[in-house]
């Protein structure tokens, strides 16, 4: 490729750098991608999802014209943009008049750019005047976000540059399979280990990531919290905690010390199944204890990282808190090269949770029930503070309220595919079908789009500009590399057009740069302050870390070095107790099910299932089960298996492997139809974050 546009991968939060352009060398003019070496997070790598991303641009069933059903039950048929937008505006007006503004709901996504996420939140509050907006990031990052806010007063997933991983003496990775979900991330771990660092992985499965670890702890699903408390118990009892740090930089340790006194190693072994010697070894590695000198040496650096495996539970917030407690007691957060972080999943999972598509939030990571925040944002939006609605329902609660007596009657959905990705998916399908009006904006006919009354064809990744904030909290630019096909529009333009039809107050732009300038003003003074970030600076500096409160401000790679973002600057310990899986195994459902991702696919698969190479690599859903279980149930490798939970059944192929505990099975969640893992998952919600319990429920298996 002789030239191209520097941008980033359309998929995960690592946001690997890539150049996109036409392949002039071969003369074919086909759009190709190549890795960029100037993006630290991706470290010059791309996985097969990234390499094949350009295939998305030419996918056969790309949406290029709006589609509409003239009435319920009629087929989706092409129509003009004006017809589609007029219909949407008319339905919104009708339903608002009949039921009030909360009758129209909005559902967003963690893949949307910052500009889109911001404009979507503004559109809901100002254009629709509805409280009912939430997004699929609730299913990803909400537990970590709630725990981070509680402990540090700020939710920046990694409060350090990702390259800090490479110099860490020890890393504890809890419930993350980065070797498959963000492969180039492994380059940082490889560099860490090449430098003599130790990697500890906690995962019920022996994943490709766990195989590369120095120590792999394999707990029973649903027991990560007890495991963390057990590790802290050992650290306390073996004198490995940092009392000086605890006194200087934290509050609330006494209550946590008392709480973990109930988590002695033998008890934790029984709950988690992790043998005591491994528990002790993990603590020693993490604390830099060699057995020769007591306590860790002054220059020992260590990181505690959590991902969805720890977070997607009905006690996900408390589980993350337990690991933060451990990190705090060891004196890690806020020290250069050490700390706690969560690994954000979706492409803009970080930025997408900062600017107002969350039910309880306004731009700049402001709280929607904070009068000062409301006044600031109202001034930017040119409305009265009282005109901004209050907090709305969380994602799953919103989805299952659709079409109910008190719930929304219409839904506008952007950048998400809940028919595949939401827990207890059959119930969500039923609610979507109960709506009076469903609008889906997407660039492919996703399973959810096919149920819509109006489908709006939008631009995708390489066809549009904007910003995304990667897992480090570094704001990056996404650049238009190719023109969109005729007939499609950007989400910003769609929202601006709808706002115009609804006579929404304020100004509405379809131009990313203009929306970003408004976002900067709206976020100014907030926790996630973008006011000093400009497109030019991002290009010149290779990204800017928020908070960045002024154009002369350098950005903040490590926000906690001096103080935490709490009122008194100290981090908060919170005592937390083991609760276990909401649904434990029993005679009828004797196996734990856990769900997750595979290397070749991304999220609901709406994109990756349309790429031939990726489909070849991972063509269909399957269930990983232990060979002992397969033998006992008479299930042969490759046979079709019915996996049944209290919510339904899924049909998938058997894949026996000793990489999984004999009491657990694993089903990846990227596929639609009868092989959907989310037909099985438990929608029990975390009381604080409202995160569903995706990662554990009870199932039984039957040969079909």
């Amino acid at each position, binding site marked *: 490729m002789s030239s191209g546009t520097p941008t980033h991968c359309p998929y995960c939060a690592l946001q690997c750098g890539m150049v996109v352009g036409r392949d002039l060398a071969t003369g074919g003019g086909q759009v190709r991608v190549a*890795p960029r070496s100037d993006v630290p997070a991706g*470290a010059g*790598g*791309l*996985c*097969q999802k990234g*390499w094949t991303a350009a295939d998305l641009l030419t996918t056969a069933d790309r949406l290029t014209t709006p589609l509409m059903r003239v009435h319920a039950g009629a087929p989706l048929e092409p129509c003009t943009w004006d017809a589609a937008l007029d219909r949407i505006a008319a339905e919104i007006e009708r339903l608002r008049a009949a039921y009030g503004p909360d009758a129209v709901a909005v559902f967003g996504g963690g893949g949307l750019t910052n500009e889109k996420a911001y404009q979507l939140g503004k559109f809901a509050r100002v254009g629709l005047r509805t409280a009912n907006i939430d997004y699929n990031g609730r299913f990803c990052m909400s537990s970590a976000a709630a725990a981070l806010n509680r402990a540090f007063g700020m939710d920046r997933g990694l409060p350090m540059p990702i390259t800090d991983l490479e110099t860490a003496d020890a890393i504890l990775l809890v419930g993350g399979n980065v*070797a*498959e979900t963000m*492969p*180039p*991330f*492994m*380059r940082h771990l*490889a560099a860490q280990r090449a430098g003599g660092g130790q990697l500890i992985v906690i995962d019920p499965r*022996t994943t*490709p990531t766990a*195989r*590369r670890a120095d120590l*792999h702890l394999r707990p*029973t699903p649903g027991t990560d919290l007890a495991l963390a408390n057990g590790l802290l118990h050992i650290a*306390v*009892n*073996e004198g490995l905690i940092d009392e000086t740090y605890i006194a200087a930089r934290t509050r609330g340790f*006494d*209550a946590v*010390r*008392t709480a973990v*006194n*109930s988590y*002695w*190693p*033998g*008890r934790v*072994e*029984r709950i*988690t*199944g*992790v*043998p*005591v*010697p*491994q528990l002790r070894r993990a603590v020693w590695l993490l604390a830099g204890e060699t057995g020769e000198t007591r306590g860790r040496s002054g220059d020992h650096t260590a990181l505690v990282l959590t991902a969805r495996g720890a977070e997607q539970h009905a006690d996900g917030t408390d589980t993350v808190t337990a690991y933060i407690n451990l990190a705090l007691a060891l004196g890690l957060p806020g020290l250069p090269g050490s700390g706690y972080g969560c690994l954000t999943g979706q492409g803009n999972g970080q930025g997408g949770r900062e600017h107002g598509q969350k039910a309880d939030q306004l731009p700049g990571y402001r709280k929607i029930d904070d009068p000062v925040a409301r006044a600031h944002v109202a001034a930017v939006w040119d409305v009265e503070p009282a005109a901004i609605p209050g907090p709305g329902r969380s994602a799953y609660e919103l989805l299952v309220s659709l079409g109910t007596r008190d719930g929304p009657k219409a839904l506008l959905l952007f950048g998400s595919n809940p028919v595949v990705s939401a827990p207890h998916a059959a119930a969500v399908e039923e609610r979507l079908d109960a709506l009076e009006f469903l609008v889906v904006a997407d660039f492919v006919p996703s399973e959810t789009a096919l149920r819509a009354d109006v489908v709006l064809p939008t631009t995708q990744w390489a066809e549009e500009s904007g910003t995304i904030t990667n897992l480090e909290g570094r704001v990056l630019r996404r650049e238009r590399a190719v023109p969109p096909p005729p007939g499609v529009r950007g989400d910003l333009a769609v929202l601006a057009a709808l706002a115009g039809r609804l006579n929404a107050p304020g100004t509405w732009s379809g131009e990313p740069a203009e929306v970003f300038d408004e976002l900067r003003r709206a976020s100014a003074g907030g926790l996630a302050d973008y006011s000093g970030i400009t497109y030019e600076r991002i290009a010149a500096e290779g990204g800017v870390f928020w908070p960045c409160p002024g154009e002369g401000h350098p950005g903040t790679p490590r926000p906690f070095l001096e103080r935490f973002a709490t009122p008194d600057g100290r981090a908060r310990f919170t005592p937390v*107790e083991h609760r276990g899986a909401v649904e434990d*195994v029993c005679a009828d459902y*004797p196996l734990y099910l856990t769900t997750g991702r595979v*290397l*070749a696919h991304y999220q609901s698969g709406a994109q990756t299932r349309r790429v031939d*190479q990726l489909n*070849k*690599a991972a063509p269909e859903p399957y269930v990983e089960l232990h060979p*002992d279980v397969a*033998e*006992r149930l008479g299930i042969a490798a490759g046979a079709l298996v019915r996996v049944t939970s209290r919510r339904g059944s899924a049909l998938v192929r058997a894949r026996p492997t*000793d990489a999984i505990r*004999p*009491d657990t099975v694993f089903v990846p969640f990227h596929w639609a139809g009868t092989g959907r893992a989310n037909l099985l998952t438990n929608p029990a919600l975390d009381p604080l974050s409202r995160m569903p319990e995706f990662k554990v429920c009870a199932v039984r298996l039957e040969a079909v």
Partner: protein
Amino acid sequence: MSEHDAPAGPPAWPGGRRIVVVGNGMAGSRFVTEMRARDPGVSITVFGQEARRPYNRVLLSNVLAGTAQPHQIGLVDPSWYAEHAIDARLGVAVTKIDRAAEVVVAEDGTTAPYDTLVLATGSAPLVPPIPGTEDGLPRGTVAFRTLDDCADIIEAAHSARHAVVIGGGLLGIEAARGLAGRGLCVTVLHLAGHLMERQLDAEAGKVLARTLTGLGIRVRLAARVAALRTRGGPDGERVVGVELAHDERPAELVPADLVVMACGVRPAVGLARAAGLAVERGIVVDEALRSVSDPAIRAIGECAQYGDVVYGLVAPAWEQAAVLADLLSGHRPAARYTGSRQITRLKAASLELATMGETHHGSHDEDVEVVQFADAARGTYKKVVIRDDRLIGAILLGETSTAGTLTQLYDRAAPLPADRLALLFAGAPAAPAAGSPVLMPDGAQVCTCNNVTKGQIRACWEDGATTVEEVTARTRATTGCGTCADAVAGIVGWLAEQSPP
């Protein structure tokens, strides 16, 4: 109160509005915190004989060994009671239960009326009838049970040289190990023919004794204590040794300036018995942990007897506390206690031991399958007992890497793996697949991130790509996580050797 006066809505308080708990040890304090977590409103009064906040008795051995400090084993913060509106009367013993009036009377004359009374009075150390203890234990002798006992032992250990531990059960061995770690010369006297005879078979007991010997602890088995030898001093009688009885020869003196008694416990049931409740070895309770004599009274922990069993471990007490809190809060009205599976885990430096269930079966016993491994020289002994493809007992001594697996298989009565060895030995972790390029089949995946097989690399080579860079450019191998770079280089190098370009 008539139906019309009933307060609207919850809470309904199935256990009544006033709950009084007698005993604030492991069981009582656990019940109080579990109950408050489920119901912020119900009135709770708790009496504790010890004035201090409740602490984790499991960790006393750590305190004795010096690996935990007394202030580090609390289970409830002192301020917690006030913050959670609990009437905590600590350091106040209850002297009487007036069942007719539904009120308890304390030693300080105060009373507490109850709708539900929870007895969690625990147990007291068993002191065998040994001459020399008639007038109480002589100085230098401690029956090991409480944190105060622990402090007394530590205090005595500062000046003592020779310690004798009477009782080679779990607690005695942990105490012996702790004292040895403090530099004392320690002898364990055990009445039975092998250590921990309730949990271990004879061979395990022997291996354990050998391990203790290696740690500098003398073990005397079948040791019948005849008397404590004492000597008068300015501060009263002080222990100087323990006399062992022998059949054929005169008593032998084992010198000791510190004697720790760890001879077991007996349930503290005096209060219950005096109140006329049915008491056998413990207070007899049903599946709702209710006294069979009085539905207003429940009992949990070491003072309670369910079926024929009085449980002496923490886990059953906590299970009972959770069930009772579920019942009294109305949280789970169908909750029932149906017995516990007992797992013992020894906690002491350089001593790894986990044991559960029926361990005494021999390999010739009918209807059981026994799998064993012994390496006495290295202090390792492992045994699993299987019936109907379920684990019914296990011992892991010296090396416990499968303890997590076994405890869960035992707890859940889960079907066992076909490979019985996996029960004794944790599998070696899978090595990263670097594999020799020569042996690798063509279909083997070399680069998982980009789905590249050895065959594709070979095809590339045959098509003229002779360097790693060229192979990478054509296949994308190594461009993902990068960890296959060595393998790709190895294959390219091997191909070069096979057929120089």
